[in-house]
């Protein structure tokens, strides 16, 4: 008979962001128990609300299968007493022992029959340790010093194997068959079976399935015309057991404040969904999510509206107070804001950012004045009231203040956009000043940290340098900025290598290029990422053609031959030494190809190079490179070497991993 298993850990409200990882961990840990103890079955679901972590499994055996274990005794040469002692210890007659040959000689052994233990017993012994092992980023104790730790106090446990309680205890809480409904709307003590578990919860205002909670929220969000903000929906789904969305309104007079500020207050501080209106403005409405079923008297709506009004009033107060002072006047204040102990304050960082922004703007033939001004103002919003209160608005608010205070568009946009991209999914700054200032800011941070040895290792990256480098790479490629990576690395080879790592990651994960393609291009020493991008695009086009990979294989072969011969070309090919036939033909193909690819776009050039394949194949099939005549041999190596050096400038073909057989 196969049995279903249900475990519910009833706990005080678990932080929403920790729940999903904890469930994954539970699945793994429990699967390990099933495997280790040979209990059969599989975990069929893990579910959670803020107050319960639930694991369900099916197909468990009633008991472990019986086993036969070979118990080794003394060697066959041992005296009778030792053998008798072994038999006695095992509780069997001498006749039950067998001599068995092993690598070390013959040994007395006993085939012991071990009956399988009951699954219920095994689980009863394993579950307390299982609960204690579930990983949470920050745990607490609550039964007293040295007591067991969990994310929050555990208040009840349901553990049912086929509707029989599996008895165990954790932190003084004994397992049973009673769960608890919604804190306010449900009953506190509800006996359940496998069959009634989910429906009992549902009728007690607990929707166990997170997906159902998500859909309940998402449906209302979409109906209200708000953007389906998955992250916020997810957060709210794990903050509630019975999510019910409501809409509220606010005084349209607040719409005079920038939409960025209103949305941030709603999303980050109140977990409301803002509703976009026309012309970049918002509608004076919001969607909030309650953890109860309805709001018949409108009390919850009015409460939320009042809180929002107070927060908006704060926002308006900060906006007005901050605007009283020109942003540029705050530059001096940045002397009091530490950037990093060894790298000085934000005033000093700003000076470096300005210099770098000018340099970049000049290299890009962009407007250096706007870039420098935007870099100068970029950090000036750090000491404003608005950023002190709503940190996530940094940059954006500075840009808005700069706009209000009459800075030209390239400048205020430069400030506004300079933290972007904040993630791989985020888009890069739309304006060239924004791109330059963002790049200058990130590159300065990277250079500074690398100079003082703050280099990320493993998971340690306190200054988020990987993200900074990733953002820089994304800006350069997607902004089409023709810049030298070596220049950006400021002559620090470690930083250049660090940036290259991000380049590899970016082209592979964002653009789906293959490992070897990226390596082939980077191996040419390409230093301009826009150029790298063009070369990769060319490889992508030419790679599926029939000549490409075979030619790549031949280039690899050429490289090996040259390496084995330890050959370094000194002069050019001597036409007089060429043998008529495939060798002369290859030499001719080389000259012709060289002429044909000159000035051609990468993809055409690559296609032309690939079309040399028959000549190369013919050469290898019919010509002996290691000719007896040393001069002929050297001439042939020179020919091969020139092919490699002249035709591997777009991509190093020898880096291409050939998948098809020649």
């Amino acid at each position: 008979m196969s049995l279903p298993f249900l475990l519910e850990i009833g706990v005080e409200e678990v932080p929403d962001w920790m729940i999903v990882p904890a469930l994954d961990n539970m699945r793994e840990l429990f699967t390990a128990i099933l495997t280790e103890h040979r209990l059969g079955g599989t975990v069929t679901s893990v579910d959670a609300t803020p107050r319960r972590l639930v694991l369900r499994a099916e197909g468990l055996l009633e008991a472990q299968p019986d086993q036969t274990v070979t118990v080794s005794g003394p060697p066959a040469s041992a005296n009778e007493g030792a053998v008798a002692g072994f038999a006695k210890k095992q509780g069997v007659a001498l006749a039950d022992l067998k001599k068995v040959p092993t690598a070390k000689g013959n040994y007395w052994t006993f085939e012991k029959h071990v009956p399988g233990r009951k699954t219920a017993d095994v689980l009863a012994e394993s579950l307390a340790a299982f609960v204690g092992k579930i990983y949470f980023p920050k745990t607490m104790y609550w039964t007293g010093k040295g007591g067991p730790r969990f994310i929050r106090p555990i208040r009840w446990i349901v553990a049912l194997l086929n509707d029989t309680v599996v008895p165990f205890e954790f932190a003084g809480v004994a397992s049973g068959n009673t769960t608890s409904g919604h804190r306010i709307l449900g009953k506190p003590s509800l006996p359940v079976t496998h069959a009634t578990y989910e429906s009992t919860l549902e009728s007690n205002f607990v929707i166990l399935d997170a997906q159902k909670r998500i859909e309940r929220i998402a449906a209302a969000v979409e109906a209200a015309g708000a953007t389906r903000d998955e992250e916020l929906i997810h957060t709210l789904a794990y903050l509630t057991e019975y999510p019910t969305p409501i809409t509220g309104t606010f005084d349209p007079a607040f719409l005079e404040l920038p939409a960025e500020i209103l949305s941030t207050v709603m999303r980050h501080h109140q977990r409301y969904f803002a509703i976009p209106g026309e012309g970049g403005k918002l509608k004076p409405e919001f969607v909030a999510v309650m953890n109860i079923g309805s709001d018949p008297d409108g009390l919850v709506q009015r409460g939320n509206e009042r809180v929002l009004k107070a927060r908006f009033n704060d926002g308006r107060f900060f906006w007005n107070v901050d605007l009283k002072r020109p942003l540029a006047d705050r530059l001096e204040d940045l002397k009091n804001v530490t950037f990093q102990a060894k790298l000085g304050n934000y005033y000093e960082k700003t000076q470096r950012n300005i210099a770098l922004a000018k340099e970049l703007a000049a290299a890009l033939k962009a407007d250096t004045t706007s870039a420098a001004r935007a870099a100068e103002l970029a950090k000036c919003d750090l000491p404003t009231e608005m950023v002190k209160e709503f940190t996530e608005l940094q940059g954006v608010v500075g840009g808005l203040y700069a706009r209000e205070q009459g800075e030209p568009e390239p400048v205020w946009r430069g400030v506004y956009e300079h933290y972007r991209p904040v993630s791989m999914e985020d888009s890069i700054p739309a304006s060239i000043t924004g791109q330059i200032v963002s790049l200058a800011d990130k590159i300065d941070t990277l250079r500074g940290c690398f100079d003082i040895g703050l280099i990320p290792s493993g998971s340690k990256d306190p200054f988020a340098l990987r993200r900074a480098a990733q953002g820089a790479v994304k800006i350069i490629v997607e902004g089409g900025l023709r810049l030298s990576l070596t220049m950006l690395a400021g002559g620090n080879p470690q930083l250049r290598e660090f940036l290259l790592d991000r380049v590899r990651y970016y082209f592979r994960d964002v653009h789906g290029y293959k490992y070897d393609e990226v390596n082939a291009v980077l191996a040419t020493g390409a230093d301009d990422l826009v150029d790298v991008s063009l070369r990769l695009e060319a490889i992508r086009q030419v790679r599926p053609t029939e000549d490409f990979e075979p030619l790549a294989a031949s280039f690899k072969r050429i490289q090996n031959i040259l390496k084995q011969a330890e050959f370094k070309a000194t002069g050019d090919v001597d036409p007089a030494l060429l043998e008529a036939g495939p060798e002369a033909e290859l030499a001719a193909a080389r000259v012709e190809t060289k002429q044909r690819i000159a000035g051609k776009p990468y993809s055409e050039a690559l296609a032309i190079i690939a079309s040399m394949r028959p000549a190369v194949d013919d050469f290898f099939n019919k010509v002996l490179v290691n000719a007896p005549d040393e001069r002929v041999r050297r001439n042939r190596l020179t020919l091969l070497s020139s092919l490699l050096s002249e035709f591997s400038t777009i991509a190093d073909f020898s880096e291409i991993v050939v998948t098809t057989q020649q």
Partner: protein
Amino acid sequence: MDVFQETVFKLKKYWSDRGCVIQEPYDMEVGAGTMCPETFLRVLGPDPYRVAYVQPSRRPADGRYGENPNRLYKHQQLQVILKPSPDNILDLYLQSLGAIGIDLRKHDIKFEEDNWESPTLGAWGVGWQVMLDGLEITQFTYFQQCGGVDLDLVPAEITYGLERLVAFLQGVESIYEIQWAPTFTYEEVRLADELQGSVYNFELADVPTLWKMFDIFEGEAQRLLDLFVKYEEKKRFPLLATYEYVLKCSNTFNLLDARGAISVTERVGIIARVRKLAVGVAHAWMQQNYPAIPKEGAAA
């Protein structure tokens, strides 16, 4: 509708009925109810304790001259400590909201993660901010460590923000509109305090004098802590007086901060100075009251 003081009476009665000592506010400047000896020292050691009190709490930097409807330099906290925390603590807390007239079936309650930490006190705990219809009305914390000492019993600390809570109950949009007593508003009772407090804290407090005071308070606390080491009759030693100097340090630090006299770089150092004293008092307190318990870090 209950007036402000009526709500306070009801909460005190509610917790009194659940075995709490009802204390009066501590007679010194503190930044939060947690800093009062009734919390900071009582949570140490293995003795159970239950206490509730209103504590006017000063945050000089939050002052707004009485002009901001939601921000105060001095706000009133109702602080409850249940040590150890009973298993039904959250139910008890929710029932206390019922006791002041909040029908939870008609309101939205959420417990959102908010872990409390006081670097100056060497104290931290985990818990939630309790949201009522989107308004944070309570900070709930399970203390784990205080004065650098792991706690023997885990207390639950419930801190009600009284102004916010009562403004919600009375349905007013400004704290100053709260009806404090039947014939007096919050504005009538407290506005002068807010205005003058802000003027002093932001404009007139003399920075060099404050620094001098900080050094004097710190010196006196440290002198006493040094004396404690050799003091024969430990039971008699005035650790409570010592702790008061730590509180004075802390308040002076907050005043300097409000005056903008502390740079970001200095900040860390000053906090460490106050923490050293707070941790010193907590360890001495353990030694004075629970000499049998081995010192933290010492071999068991």
